């Protein structure tokens, strides 16, 4: 089929912190060298920010470099961190405050800001647009396009107006080819094109598998007398056992709102574990519920994060394109932050591209210089220092691992002469359901804790009803024939949006049902399915959550 196409110098996939920083830096450098540069950013959310979910405490290192006068320019970094509480929760109603000197250094937050990353991205998008970047929200990058020599040529936007059975509706609009000299992939954690590129170009050779966590987040409007703007609270321990990694956060933002969430590492082994229910019951601990009582929950969402760190960073370049931000995986697990590294790696990609442009044609070329830039940047430095933090927690559990992390970070400053590895991918860690005890999750009380469906409602998720399912099963028999008997089909529990259900059909037989319309694009199923049988592909553009200030 002959498709329409548009040509750009650089096409960026994803309007998150990495993609938008790439765009802004490209335009800054092009202006400095008086170069004409055609840059476009394509974003699957219905607007910039609609699919952005992050804690977020932002370390301003990258934004200081990108826009040194961001304050005067009105960047929405309004709440400086004023206090840092770390609790070790020991049970349903108990917790100990960890004295400040015992907290590993990377977890200190002086000089950082509590932000809504969605709003920061909206601001970055404004800056990019004012410098001439074309931003197209509501369009998906459905496929990568390749030249005959195998190099990346650009991307194909998703078709619009395709019915569930694949037929074309009246409104059908075929996708367009967006062609570029270099395509920068900034899809975020577990990007579906990034995943394919890593396989195609063997970008993960000689690195550890990526490791992930699932973050589930809510925003609450709380009673003004309980609100302490600028206070940052982190918890470890309960409700997770010592062998399941994860923890909670609660940040007092502006306007009497708090952002709170819980991250469960996706290498958990008990298939009966439900990250959603862990998050709900975590809120009932008085260290958290003290702030929430009398308040109102106003938003909900979820997103996978990559936390493999240094040992899991893939090769970043391939002919015709680059990987940046969480599409590659630069989150610093010790700091629990990835926005600053996402932004910085986007900027490094921009610098790589502009420098290469000065030496000639860059179409189809592999810009390997980005590796050197990354390795000599502070991103590499800080990931290197904290490289044993994650594996320590994994090896020794929260308490012993946490103690090691303290020694490693506070005494040795990350300079111990060894590197630990974690080579088991997260989808291969489940134990058979029969060997595990199902946690007894309490019923939601409707005040502090809630059920899944009323939660998904608060993510304002919407997908056009009549469209092909965007969660594809390689082998449709796996969920019922294999996953159900062996692992109680864990998709029912790990999905934070109630997409997957095992129901009875008319004959009373088990049936695997996919409610794709509920999907909040967190990518957990693509990561955790033990058979790696679920592939997340892009639904029709504009579909998915509509996050406000997540």
């Amino acid at each position, binding site marked *: 089929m002959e498709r329409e196409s548009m040509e750009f110098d650089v096409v960026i996939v994803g309007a998150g912190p990495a993609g938008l920083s790439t765009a802004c830096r490209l335009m800054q450098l092009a202006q400095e060298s008086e170069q004409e540069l055609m840059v476009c950013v394509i974003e699957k959310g219905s607007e910039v920010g609609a699919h952005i979910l992050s804690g977020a405490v932002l370390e301003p290192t990258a934004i200081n470099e990108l826009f040194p006068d961001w304050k005067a320019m009105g960047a929405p970094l309004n709440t400086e961190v004023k206090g840092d509480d770390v609790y070790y929760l020991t049970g349903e109603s108990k917790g100990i405050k960890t004295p400040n000197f015992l907290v590993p250094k990377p977890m200190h937050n002086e000089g950082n800001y509590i932000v809504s990353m*969605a709003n920061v991205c909206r601001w970055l998008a404004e800056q990019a647009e004012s410098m001439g970047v074309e931003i197209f929200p509501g369009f998906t990058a459905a496929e990568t396009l390749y030249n005959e020599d195998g190099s990346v040529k650009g991307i194909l936007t998703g078709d619009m*107006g395709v019915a569930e059975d694949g037929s074309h509706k009246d*409104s059908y609009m075929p996708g367009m080819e967006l062609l570029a000299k270099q395509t920068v992939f900034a899809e975020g954690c577990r990007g579906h094109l990034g995943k394919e590129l890593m396989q195609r170009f063997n970008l993960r050779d000689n690195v550890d598998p990526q490791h992930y966590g699932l973050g589930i987040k809510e925003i609450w409007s709380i009673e003004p007398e309980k609100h302490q703007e600028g206070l940052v609270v982190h918890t470890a321990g309960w409700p997770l056992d010592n062998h399941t990694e994860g923890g909670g956060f609660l940040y007092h933002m502006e306007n009497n709102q708090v952002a709170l969430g819980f991250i469960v590492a996706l290498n958990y082994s008990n298939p009966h574990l439900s990250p959603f229910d862990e998050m709900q019951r975590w809120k009932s601990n008085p260290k958290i519920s003290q702030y929430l009582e009398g308040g109102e929950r106003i938003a909900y969402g979820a997103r996978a994060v990559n936390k493999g760190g240094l040992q899991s960073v893939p090769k970043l370049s391939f002919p015709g394109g680059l990987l940046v931000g969480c599409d590659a995986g630069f989150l610093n697990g010790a700091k629990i932050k990835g926005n600053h590294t996402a932004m910085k790696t986007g900027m490094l990609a921009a610098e790589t591209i502009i420098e290469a442009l000065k030496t000639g044609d860059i179409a189809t070329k592999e810009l390997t210089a980005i590796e050197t830039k990354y390795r000599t940047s502070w991103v590499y430095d800080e990931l290197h220092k904290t490289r044993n933090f994650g594996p320590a927690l994994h090896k020794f559990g929260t308490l012993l691992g946490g103690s090691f992390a303290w020694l490693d970070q506070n005494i040795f400053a990350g300079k111990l002469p060894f590197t630990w590895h974690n080579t088991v991918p997260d989808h291969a860690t489940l134990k058979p359901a029969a060997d595990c005890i199902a946690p007894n999750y309490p019923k939601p009380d409707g005040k502090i804790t809630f059920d899944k469906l009323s939660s998904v409602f*608060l993510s304002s998720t919407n997908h056009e009803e009549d469209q092909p399912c965007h969660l594809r099963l390689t082998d449709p028999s796996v969920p019922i024939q294999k996953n159900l008997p062996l692992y109680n089909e864990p998709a029912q529990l790990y999905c934070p949006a109630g997409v997957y259900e095992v129901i009875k059909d008319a004959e009373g037989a088990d049936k695997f049902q996919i409610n794709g319309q509920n999907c909040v694009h967190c990518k957990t199923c693509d990561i955790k399915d033990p058979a790696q049988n679920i592939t997340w592909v892009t639904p029709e553009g504009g579909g998915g959550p509509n996050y406000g200030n997540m």
Partner: protein
Amino acid sequence: MKIIVGVKRVVDYNVRIQVKPDGSGVVTDGVKMSLNPFDEIAIEEALRIKESGKAEEVIAVTIGAKACQEQLRTALAMGADRAIHVETDEGIQPLTAARIFKALCDKEAPKLVIFGKQAIDDDNSQTAQMLAALSHWPQATFASEVVIDADTASVTREVDAGLETLSVDLPAVVSADLRLNEPRYVKLPDIMKAKRKPIDTVSISDLGVEVAAGIKVLKTTAPAKRQAGIMVETVEQLVVALKEKGLIK
């Protein structure tokens, strides 16, 4: 002929509305805003009339703050030829809106003005009707089909009893119902082109319009929360439960 289409920036239909804690309205900060869905249908209809050769120009008009230009850009990307932004930071009531459109109609002399049948934020459904009255033009509201024939429009309306077909002389005011058409998807090149299409910005006083403030919003509250239901096993239990609630005797 020219067609004017009135469009409004509203909170996106997917967003769960939150009432401000002080009850002065609903939260619109940091909330996704969109073109009112019925206005999108109105634009689509105007474009189809133009594409069938029965109109030469489609003008999108909005009233509101600077940010409303985003919605005008959407209309331009769909295919409107130009746009007029009546800029104001005040809340505008339907009568003022109708007066503004009257002033613009006097200036632009369109043969047809199309609105969405109502905006999904205040659900007033008044501006189209008021404009028709102020202009002494015929109106055909809640249209599910519009056929233009020289100096008349044949409009099929959705009414309680079924469908009603009217013939109105042009110029006329039409408001679009849900089933009038399915708006097109916007194409990427058209989004880029829309950035270069003209938007005229005027103020209410430029148009010589007197602002009406006949309605005052006293309070905004969220609907009462629904009580959780109970499951009963038998008809007898149902009767007992209903009696307990005092719903039957």
